[in-house]
């Protein structure tokens, strides 16, 4: 089994534990788009402190890991048109569809929630189409 898959399982288990802490501790679903989006559009104003704490650690801890050594490269495209279009679609889509990979994917599927399972199948399918179409173009 390639080492990347093992790191995937280990990292995934940590992500699941993070969701478990947020659920069992604070009674909330750990969805990155929901936690950030609620701050952006003001719907999460009364829980803004815990949202900010979550985001600070989500940004800060990988920054420390990066500084202390685990070499990672995001390999993101430098095509600004793709970055702007991709960012806008991800922002709009996750808020309109009420979730992203963490909320619908991790938290929804683990609860056997039909909405989460269907959303995950759809966004993976749309992502496959998008990647396949782009590969044909460039």
């Amino acid at each position: 089994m390639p080492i990347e898959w093992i790191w995937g399982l280990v990292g995934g288990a940590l992500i699941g534990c993070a969701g478990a802490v947020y659920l069992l501790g604070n009674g909330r679903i750990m969805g990155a788009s929901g936690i950030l989006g609620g701050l952006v559009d003001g719907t999460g104003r009364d829980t803004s402190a815990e949202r900010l704490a979550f985001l600070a650690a989500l940004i800060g801890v990988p920054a420390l890991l990066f500084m202390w050594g685990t070499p990672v490269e995001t390999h993101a495209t430098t095509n600004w048109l793709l970055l702007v279009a991709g960012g806008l679609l991800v922002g709009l889509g996750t808020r309109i569809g009420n979730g992203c990979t963490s909320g619908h994917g991790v938290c929804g599927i683990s609860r056997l929630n039909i909405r989460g399972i269907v959303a995950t199948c759809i966004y993976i399918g749309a992502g496959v189409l998008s990647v396949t179409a782009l590969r044909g173009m460039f």
Partner: protein
Amino acid sequence: MRLILALLAGGLFGTGLHLSGMTDTQKVLGFLDLFGAWDPTLMFVMGGAIVPMAIAWALTRGRSPLVGGTFPAKPDAKLDPRLISGAVMFGIGWGLVGLCPGPALASLTYGGPSGLIFFSAMVIGMWLAPRALRLLDRPATAE
């Protein structure tokens, strides 16, 4: 207490995303490249995450959250056009760059200008979403 638990969850989430390689857009795009050089890593990440999360859901039965209150109710199985169109838009955007909200946040400090441009556009999209929905709703409520 709420804040400490939120910090702990955010830190674990960030560590998991970082170690699993999900902040590397090539790994994510590789997973979506089903008809090319398919990279299944993301599947292992999902699988690894779903197990502890399923245990957590099982533990919610008959209990309440540590800080009090109630656990989120299971939503209706209803599939509305909002869920489907949102997921389609999200998936297309995800495939264009290989970043979704979690990894975009986790890699914000080391993702360079690309990461910052994507993040800014994503925040604008999140700000626009309720406004776009209100525009769509207007003809229906005017009837």
